[in-house]
């Protein structure tokens, strides 16, 4: 996609997630009391209300839970088609990421595909994109 991607505004809660790619880490917030993974990241556990939470590095692999191939140019500079997918992360039960599956033809993606993170830097943000594991 050549069109610029809208980027997240960084704050204390989301910074570990959006900048982990600088050191190759996919980080998901986790409660250190009950172990629940928390996404979107917040300073309190949605399961036990503990504030003892912090970012944890997860493997960066996962499975395509569902997906869509986008054909619509939402603005003129957008390159289509491309794949938007919901990836269920390994090692972080219950957490899904909306992302793009890159590095393969759009029509080749399917539910159940194994994928691995591939970070792409835009300014001060490292977007976790995913590619299929051969």
């Amino acid at each position, binding site marked *: *996609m050549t*069109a610029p*991607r*809208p*980027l*997240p*505004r960084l*704050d204390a809660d*989301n910074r570990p997630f959006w900048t982990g790619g600088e050191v190759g880490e996919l980080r998901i917030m986790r409660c250190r009391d009950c172990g629940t993974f928390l*996404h*979107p990241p917040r300073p309190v556990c949605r399961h036990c209300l503990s504030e003892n939470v912090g970012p944890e590095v997860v493997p960066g692999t996962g499975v395509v*839970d*569902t*997906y*869509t*191939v*986008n*054909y*619509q140019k*939402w603005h003129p500079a*957008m390159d289509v088609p*491309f794949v*938007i*997918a*919901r990836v269920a992360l390994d090692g972080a039960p219950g*957490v*899904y*990421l*909306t*992302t*793009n599956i890159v590095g393969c033809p759009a029509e080749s993606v*399917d*539910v159940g595909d194994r994928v691995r993170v591939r970070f792409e830097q*835009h300014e001060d*943000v490292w*977007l976790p*994109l995913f590619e299929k594991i051969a």
Partner: protein
Amino acid sequence: MSLSNEAYITGVGQSQIGVKLARSPLLLTVDAVKEALDEAGLSIGQIDGVSTYPGRVAQMLGFSPIGADELIDALGIRATWYAGGGEISSQLGAVVAAATAVRAGLARHVICFRTVYEAAALSRPDEFPMPRRDRVDGFSQWTAPFNALSAANWTAQYAMRHVKKYGLKREQLAQIALTDRAHAALNPRALVREPLSMDEYLAARMISSPLCLYDCDRFTDASTVLIVSAGTAVNEVRCTPIRIAAMAGTVERHSWDQAEWTASYATGRDLWTRTDYRPKDVDTVQFYDGFAFYALTWFEALGFCGIGEGGQFIEGGRRIALDGELPLNTFGGQIGAGRLHGFGFAHEAVTQLRGKGGARQIKKADPRLAIATSGGGPLATALLLARD
């Protein structure tokens, strides 16, 4: 429960439905208010409450240009209760709020309205600027960086799961759009009045697979009004009151991509715990179809068929046609009538229960019970409406 503690939808009204209308959003709202007052035989002085969704949205005025505050002031309403906001279980949550208020004795006759100006706003960006997208926060930050910019993309992923898990076919999903368009052709106010054929549907370009162009509603400029009246005040009204027999509304994970299921499923389950009616008693359904897939999920969510069986249930389209066992979206839905954003479904349910559908009136004699829904993503509301 005594009848006096019930809530009713009395007058309903609607402006013209158009694209790039010159008439202002406030005046479109006034058009709908006047029609609703006329039908109910009420004067504006008898209105003492206002409820709307999502209130005025300053950063996206086309989406919601008029809030409760402005309408109250513009029409000189003396409100003893009012509310307007987006943090509610989707569009018809504003009707749930009004019904709750009249049952609590906070108001007697409440104007519920939804005004949209999305088509005009696109053509007049100086007056109605689009939100800036340089940096995003809140829910958008989890989708927009991946160019999942539209609700079409988010919804398509739920639909794709139905395709992969339950074998939903395009020819099945098509029946939502085909039915909507067939019914819209019979509605003089509908935005799109030409029927759609299966061949045209199957040849349509994809927007976000498996959703094609005809699975998406169309921006429009319009206002819809429903007056919710207290049981203690319903004798002041001259139209046939329609009782709100049960209500339900839920939210799943607010971030669309964390939810396992759309909110319609929990909403549908809750609705039937609050009434002795059963799905077999329902004469017509008006299901939210901002994307066609949502209407399909509502059949499953409300127990008209099993989960995953929605495609088979509507296959061929006979069952959901005007003369079928469960007529769907008889005004054309948002795909045919235009994106009225939730309120059109309740407006039409009331119209059908009063036998006022004209050329699009369902063929069953003496309809008594209808369902209107809104939402279907992470937010959903269902109303069970009865003519006693």
